[in-house]
C-alpha cells in the first residue's frame, strides 16, 4: 500500500497550522506565493512523512488530502 500526500497549492492560505502540528517536521511554507498571494505549505522532507493525517485534520481549508493507492513502489 502506498500513500499519496497532496497539498492543493491554490486552496492553501499559508496559515502554517499544519507546519506547527506535524510530528515529523515534514512541512514548511514556500518562499513563492500562489495566485492568491499566500505562501503555501509544501513537504520539504517527504521521506520523513508517516501519513498520520494530522496535518489534514488541522488544515482549516481542507487543502491537504492523502489517497491510498495499490502501487507497491513506495
Amino acid at each position, binding site marked *: *500500500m502506498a*500513500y499519496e500526500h497532496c497539498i492543493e497549492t*491554490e*486552496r492553501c*492560505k*499559508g*496559515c*502554517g*497550522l499544519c507546519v*506547527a*502540528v506535524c510530528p515529523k517536521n515534514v512541512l514548511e511554507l514556500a518562499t513563492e506565493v500562489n495566485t492568491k498571494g*499566500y505562501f503555501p505549505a509544501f513537504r520539504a522532507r517527504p521521506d520523513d512523512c*508517516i*501519513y*498520520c*493525517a*494530522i496535518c*489534514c*485534520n*488541522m*488544515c*482549516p*481549508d*481542507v487543502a*491537504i*488530502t*492523502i*489517497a*491510498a493507492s495499490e502501487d507497491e513502489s*513506495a
Partner: protein
Amino acid sequence: MAKGKTFSKPKALSDAHTHYCPGCTHGIIHRLVAEAIDDLGIRGRTVGVAPVGCAVLAYNYFNCDFQEAAHGRAPAMATGIKRVRPDLMVFTYQGDGDLASIGLGEIVHAANRGEKFTTIFVNNAIYGMTGGQMAPTTMPDQRTTTSPFGRKADEVGMPMRMAELLASLATPAYVTRQAVLRPKHINKARKAIKQAFTYQVASRCFTFVEVVSTCPTNWGMTPTDAIDWAEETLLPYYPLGEFKVPE
C-alpha cells in the same frame, strides 16, 4: 513503512474556497459538521441555518440545503423549519456575537422549549466580521476595537459561559463545549458533533455544541500564536466537556 491513514474532503463540503482569513478555525468546524453529516448519511435531508457573522456565507461551503437567518434569529428559523418538517435534520451555525449577544433570547428559549435541532456555537471571544468589537464572550483585559484598554469586568461584567447557562435549564438537552485548537481537541469535537446529530436523528432533545475557536486577524496574532493564546487564556475560563446529556 508504517501503516498510514487516508484523508479526503467530506462530500457534504462543497469545492468552494472559503473566504475565511488564513488560520481561521471556522474551516475546521465546517469540515467536522460535514463529516458528521456524511457519517450519518443525512445529507439529502439536512438543512443548515446560517447566521450573521463570519459564517454568513456558510451556505456556499456545504452541499446541503441552507437558509440565511436575520442576525441572531437562527434558532427561531430552525424552530420553524423543524416544526413544519420534523423529518429534516436542522442545524444552526452561529458565532458568539450572533448567538450570545443579539440572539440570546432566541437561543435560550429554543433550548428551554427543547426544540430538536442542533446548534453549533463558534466561540472565538470577539466579533469577527464587523471588525473585532467586544463580544459577550470577550475575556477580561482582552483588547478589542471597542475595548482598546481591555475589557473592564467592573463595567461590562464577566464573559458569558453559554454552555453552562443553557445546561442550567431544566429541559433535557445535550450541551457540550469542545475546542479545535489542537488535533486532540479536533478529534473530540468531531465525536461531540456527531453525537449531537445522532441525538437529533433520534428526536431526543435540543443539542448544543460550543466550539472554542480562534480569530487570528482580530486578535492581532499569527494563527499559531492565536492557538497558543486561546489555549492559555480561553480554555481555563471555558472548560471543555459535556455539561448535560439527556437521560
